[in-house]
């Protein structure tokens, strides 16, 4: 009973301090909203309006018709017409365009002679998505060349995307972004909350009171669990209002999964706090966890496409499992029971990290 009162004393103190720390308090609300807006609007994998230049060396009626059709796809935005293929290369190198279209002088003959390609696309290969777009253009239906467009070329293959038929990026991104935002704030808050007390000397005072290290840790974590849940609600609301992101599965399942994930991150934050001696170090370590959580969790790149080693690293990160859970629950209407391995991993991760943190913490002043 006394233990419960002591934990509540820590919780009350923590909330009071958080309320006076404008910056941290602003982060609770500001960080998710800003990240959502940035990621939701900026990250857009359905590429449109790529800056393109055309070198039309044929100058025939047919070639002009081809350029007009190219323009109609809206994938390219034709910003310039140049004389030679070399001019295109110069523009590419300078980063002024992403795609160069070369229409050779014998374009009309090549179109009728089906053995050779009629048009060459010069693509800025530094961005892998550009290559994907170029390949997409290759299959574009060409009205005047009915033979190519109907019989022997691959546009017969119908692409039918599941779960996101409109191919809107925010729908894919927001469930993952939820994981990234929670990783960032939860780890940072807990790690800093304890390291700050060590830096300011508060910890030496606390250790000398009847307060046990478990009570201290539990008291520190409770306010942030609540904050994590509030952030989740905020992300879901913004996702719904601005990007029309659905929650197809059960909201209860989603909150259960999020609780496990928040707990895993808080445990990780506590673990970091036992290793860092200054707030700056804690932040450095947080970035060390955050970057793989963005890059290797399946948030940025498809998980299955990553090299095996990267996949192993990804499997360790809580965010990888949380993204699987949220995409399943929010987009595919999966029930939590169908996704148990990922949930169990998060719970296991929490327990192990908590255990190590408590072990290390009690030995701290020696």
């Amino acid at each position, binding site marked *: 009973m006394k233990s419960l*009162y002591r934990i509540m*004393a820590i919780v*009350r103190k923590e909330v*009071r301090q958080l309320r006076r720390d404008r910056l941290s308090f602003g982060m609770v609300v500001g960080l998710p909203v800003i990240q959502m807006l940035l990621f939701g609007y900026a990250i857009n994998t359905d590429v449109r309006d790529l800056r393109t230049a055309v070198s039309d060396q044929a100058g025939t009626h047919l070639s002009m018709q081809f350029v007009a059709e190219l323009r109609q796809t809206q994938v390219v935005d034709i910003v310039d017409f140049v004389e030679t293929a070399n001019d295109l290369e110069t523009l590419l190198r300078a980063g002024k365009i992403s795609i160069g279209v070369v229409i050779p002088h014998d374009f009309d003959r090549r179109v009728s002679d089906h053995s050779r390609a009629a048009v060459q696309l010069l693509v800025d290969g530094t961005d892998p998505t550009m290559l994907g777009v170029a390949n997409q253009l290759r299959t574009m239906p060409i009205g005047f060349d009915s033979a190519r467009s109907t019989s022997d070329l691959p546009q017969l293959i119908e692409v039918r995307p599941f779960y996101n038929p409109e191919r809107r990026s925010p729908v894919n991104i927001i469930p993952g972004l939820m994981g990234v935002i929670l990783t960032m704030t939860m780890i940072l808050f807990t790690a800093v909350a304890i390291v700050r007390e060590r830096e*300011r000397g*508060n910890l*030496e*005072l606390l250790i000398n009171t*009847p307060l046990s290290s478990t009570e201290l840790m539990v008291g520190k974590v409770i306010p942030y669990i609540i904050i994590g849940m509030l952030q989740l609600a905020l992300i879901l609301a913004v996702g719904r209002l601005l990007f029309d992101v659905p929650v197809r599965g059960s909201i209860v399942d989603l909150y259960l999964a999020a609780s496990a994930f928040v707990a895993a991150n808080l445990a990780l934050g506590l673990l970091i706090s036992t290793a860092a001696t200054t707030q700056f170090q804690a932040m450095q370590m947080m970035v060390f966890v955050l970057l793989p959580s963005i890059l290797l969790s399946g948030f940025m790149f498809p998980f299955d496409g990553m090299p095996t080693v990267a996949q192993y690293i990804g499997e360790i990160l809580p965010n990888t499992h949380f993204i699987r859970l949220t995409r399943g629950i929010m987009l595919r209407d999966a029930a939590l029971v169908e996704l148990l391995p990922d949930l169990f991993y998060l719970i296991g991760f929490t327990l192990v990290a908590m255990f190590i943190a408590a072990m290390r913490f009690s030995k701290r002043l*020696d």
Partner: protein
Amino acid sequence: MHSEFAIEARGLSKQFGELRAVSSLDLKVPRGEIYGFLGPNGSGKSTTIRMLCGLLTPTTGAATVLDTDIPGDSKDLKPKIGYMTQKFSLFGDLTVLENLQFIAEIYSYPFADRSTRIDALLDRYDLAAMRKQLAGTMSGGERQRLALACAVLHHPELLLLDEPTSAVDPQSRRDFWENLFRLAGGGTTILVSTHYMDEAERCHRLAILDHGVKVADGTPQELQDRTGMNIVEVIADDPYAAQAAIHDLEAVASVTQLGIRLRVLIPQSHSSPRELVEHALAARKLQATTSLSAATLEDVFVAVTMKPRRSG
């Protein structure tokens, strides 16, 4: 078993890697007294205090603090001790009142008496007017009064104070010591570390630490009587030249300049200290008057922490 000593340490040592911070320390602190630790920075004062309250585990040796064995489970000890850290360790972003309330909650102070106790402390330590002020915005002296109020809130039997007055002005130091005497009068045992001589002189009993070793202990009077040094005070027209003349003498242990005065420490084994000094000054034709003086605590401190200058 109730010991007459609040603290009894036997061969207490602490090793940090290569550094021996505290070396075989024996200590007996009687209940109800103010016991001082006097020593320069890095002499092991803080390390010893941290070992005595269970914050650090001794490398070797043991202690009994308020009948609790150290090393051991210090859980029962914590409610009985109050600890004031060297650095201000309360919460700067909580108000005076909130800090006191937090400490009361952590120590499970009986709920019914809590606000009476806090009001009494605010009154006693002259904090009532600033109860709503954030602790981080207070002056050094005010913070120190708050820290003391928090350390004694739960009526500890033993108070451990680690250089409590290092960041406060002389007036606040005087007031602080008044408070300590009041607490000691009420039966609280107080262990206080300091590097101020005037504070050491106020203690009932003190130990002088140097490089982790206890080099002397006893009441201030005992220490002054036992220096083993004669003190010759020299008033010279040119104290700097006089110091140079005396400093190189074989028998002189130490020379300290205080304004135009020099205090010369000469071991009592030397039969005529005053003549020795006068001779040396006359040889260099320096104008000076000499007199024998009683040892102060500062002289004691210099004598016992002095590195051996030369053999013999």
